[in-house]
């Protein structure tokens, strides 16, 4: 990104109507390791790449259970993600306590977005540097949302965020039309294959990814390494060429997130503010 004279604090507009600090926060999301979400009519799968800092350390947790019916995968500043997950858990449990009923995920996502917006309009705060893929169930079925540091949120059939997520997005774009009617197993397989796309040639092993599932009759939980490896074994018999890594990534902008009709491309443009995607 370029140096700008209007980027010192979040409450300064640029002459072209941009808040650079917010855009820089969204860059932080792109630097984090990849997270992927997909949904069908009845299930949502969240998956992420686990890259440890060094061989000596363990990897960071990027997928959190918010409630039996809501889970979140993050990319970006993990610390910010952890704090927001705690907020989400708190909102969810308070709602359950008062109404003895699960908090509709659509409402949680709006609370989260409003919280993020506050940080874009206070001079003494900074935006959260984390993108959240929130998957959950409510009365109207399964939903997948993406919350970004700008305070915007969008609903998706499938989405990927973080570094090299474009490869995963390209894979998902080819397949997303079938996801609504997918079985649970196919959805998990598609998630793991999308993860594979972001690894760009590295062999896919179950130790490199975390996969979680929630559904109409299934509380949110992480899949164990064995189950993941079994799915990998069904397609990773011969390491395949990354045929979609070279596809272009400048796609036309759609208007703000259409509900459940597909995903957005176009990360990496320089003329339009990313927050407007």
């Amino acid at each position, binding site marked *: 990104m370029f140096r700008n004279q209007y980027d010192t604090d979040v409450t300064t507009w640029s002459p072209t109507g941009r808040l650079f600090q917010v855009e820089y926060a969204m860059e932080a999301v792109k630097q984090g390791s990849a997270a992927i979400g997909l949904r069908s009519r009845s299930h949502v799968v969240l998956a992420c790449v686990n890259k440890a800092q060094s061989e000596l350390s363990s990897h960071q947790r990027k997928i959190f259970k918010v409630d039996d019916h809501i889970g979140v995968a993050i990319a970006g500043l993990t610390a910010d993600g952890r704090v927001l997950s705690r907020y989400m858990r708190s909102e969810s449990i308070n709602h359950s306590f*008062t*109404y*003895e*009923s699960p908090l*509709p995920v*659509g409402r949680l996502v709006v609370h989260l977005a409003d919280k993020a917006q506050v940080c874009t309009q206070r001079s003494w705060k900074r935006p959260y540097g984390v993108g959240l893929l929130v998957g959950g169930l*409510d*009365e109207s079925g399964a939903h997948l949302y993406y919350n970004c540091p700008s305070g915007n949120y969008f609903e998706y059939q499938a989405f990927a965020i973080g570094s090299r997520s474009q490869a995963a997005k390209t894979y998902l774009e080819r397949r997303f039309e079938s996801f609504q009617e997918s079985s649970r197993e196919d959805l998990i397989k598609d998630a793991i294959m999308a993860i594979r796309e972001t690894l760009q040639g590295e062999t896919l092993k179950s130790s490199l990814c975390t996969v979680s599932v929630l559904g109409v009759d299934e509380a949110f939980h992480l899949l164990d390494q064995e189950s993941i490896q079994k799915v990998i074994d069904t397609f990773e018999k011969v390491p395949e060429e990354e045929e979609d890594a070279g596809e272009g990534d400048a796609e036309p902008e759609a208007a703000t997130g259409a509900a459940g009709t597909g995903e957005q491309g176009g990360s990496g443009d320089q003329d339009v503010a990313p927050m407007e995607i």
Partner: protein
Amino acid sequence: MTTFTVPIDNGDSVRIAEEESQRTLYPYVTGTSIVAIKYKDGVLMASDMGGSYGSTLRYKNIERVKAIGKHSLLGASGEISDFQEILRYLDELTLNDNMWDDGNSLGPKEIHNYLTRVMYNRRNKFNPLWNTLVLGGVKNGKSYLGMVSMIGVSFEDDHVATGFGNHLARPILRDEWHADLSFEDGVKLLEKCMRVLLYRDRSAINKLQIAKITEEGVTVSQPYSLKTFWEFSSFHNPTAGAEGSW
């Protein structure tokens, strides 16, 4: 009893005003029993339209059963002003719920639990809402019927009754309620309970409403009266067995 003092400076001297904190000590205008049952298509709830001021039957046109949102009915016995306060809370709650406009809505279970929280919290502050509430409703084909008392005791059941109804209506309901009552049988059962209450509860009046809630919505009947029979032989000469008494 907590009192606190507020010093007031009126120029010459300082007077101290004592303010006793306001909390409910006893009810003033009260409604009597509510009786409600689950039936085939939903829930039926009956109440009379009386508001007693102590032993005087002062108000005869009080609606003690109200529709809440799209899916619920709330009936109350006890202090009428507290019932009106609760209706205001629920109005705010359902308004905010509607404003989300997102395909989700609060069902009877959620409202029942919300009310339980409210009643229990007030009880803990020694400032109760002096009501026993009956919450019935239907959502997504499932019927729901529950009760909350002024001390926050809360439960669900197939048939409930408050006040005198606890003693007079419950035994009838236990004997004669069964699942999948038709609308006509449900109304007959409720009327049987209400008739006993009319004979035996001195704060009951002969003007009642029966409200029905089904998946389609709420209907509250027009007020009507029950037929009563007073020609029992022992009523003709009640002191026959004990001359001089009444």
